[in-house]
């Protein structure tokens, strides 16, 4: 038979507090939560919103389909999709055979290589954007250049005779 101890119980042992160092500071979150249910619900909410948006757009603004391809037309003004507007704008800055190759082939390839290499280019150990200003400013400049060129190209295309979707 087990012996029953009488008297005051000894205090519960305190859990050893983790010593936080620069190496382990990012190993656990402050107050983590399970992926299910909160994050799953947030993901489903956003996905559902996107589904509704695509369905509404599908009926409200039907997908483009202009006249069939006709190689003999001479008055058709080709325009790229919006996601290639910034590349289209670069053709203005880099005209001529040699410069086109530089602007629309060499530059995007260099840009892609730099994108791939970002983890090795950013050697700053800090994660916060405020503590790695060079990378953040560089990233901001690249995004600004893309968005600005996108709008410049859009304005140019819309002002070009026959460039607007209507005409």
């Amino acid at each position, binding site marked *: 038979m087990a012996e029953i101890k009488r008297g005051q119980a000894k205090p519960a042992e305190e859990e050893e507090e983790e010593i936080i160092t620069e190496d382990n500071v990012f190993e656990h979150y*402050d107050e983590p939560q399970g992926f299910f249910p909160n994050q799953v619900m947030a993901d489903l909410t956003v996905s559902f919103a996107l589904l509704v948006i695509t369905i509404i757009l599908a009926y409200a603004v039907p997908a483009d389909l202009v006249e069939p391809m006709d190689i003999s037309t001479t008055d058709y003004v080709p325009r790229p999709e919006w996601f290639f507007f910034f590349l289209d704008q670069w053709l203005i800055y880099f005209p001529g055979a040699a410069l086109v190759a530089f602007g629309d082939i060499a530059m995007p390839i260099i840009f892609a290589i730099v994108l791939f290499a970002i983890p090795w280019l950013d050697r700053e150990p800090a994660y916060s954007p405020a503590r790695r200003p060079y990378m953040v400013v560089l990233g901001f400049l690249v995004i600004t250049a893309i968005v600005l060129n996108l709008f410049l190209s859009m304005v140019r295309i819309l002002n070009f005779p026959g460039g607007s979707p209507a005409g």
Partner: protein
Amino acid sequence: MTRIRDRMAERGRDVADWLEERTRLVSFMEKQLYEPTPRRGMWLYTLGSATLFLITIQFLTGILLLFYYVPTTKDAWNSIYYIMHHVYFGQLIRGMHFWGANLLLIVIGLHMIRTFLSGSYKPPREMNWVVGVALIILVSLLAFTGYALRWDQEGFYAWEVGMKIASYTPLIGAWAVSLLLGGDTVGPATLSRLFVFHVWLMPAILAPLIGVHLILLRLHGEFGAAFEYSERLAKLNKRKQYERMEEYFASDEEEEESSRGE
């Protein structure tokens, strides 16, 4: 009522046990569903799953479009016109494919910006960033090839301009154009190749890369911005401050002792 509920719960447990014994599915789901994720900034982390959702929509609507799309120069435009005007829900399916592609490019861009700003590419997550960049390039190429598949004036001339630019590539320009056109000029072979790139080749590369992206994410966990770790960072800073103070006082005492000795 209680008895029915108990019987139902028991049956549910039986099914779960049966599945677990044969597939280990229950323990797998438990591991995946209850993995710790950051509590703050929860909505920022929905961009990755939103991207995956839109890619799934693209796959599903793309498969449905293939039931009617004919990849020949004579019938490509007509088949799309037919889908839009005569097929049940044709306008919806094509519209969802078209707008889904546009939204996908926006969402994947935002996902990349979030990853960049939070520094989520830092060790040991470098390879996930590399795979992510490959995915964004693939998605852009899919959008470009899909644009030309409708074989209308817009798509055709966009492809023509693209080929013109590609022809300026030093050393491999002519070869690349010949590969993409399937000859010297735009023709039936061009559309066949576009179809192969858009429907077979690129999705065949994209799908396993998405798998690798998700496996790597699960391996190293999600990384948010530094604010997810603000309490731990505060503790670290406090400890470092104490250490600095201790060092300061220790050096003061040493100085005092050495001055006494003199």
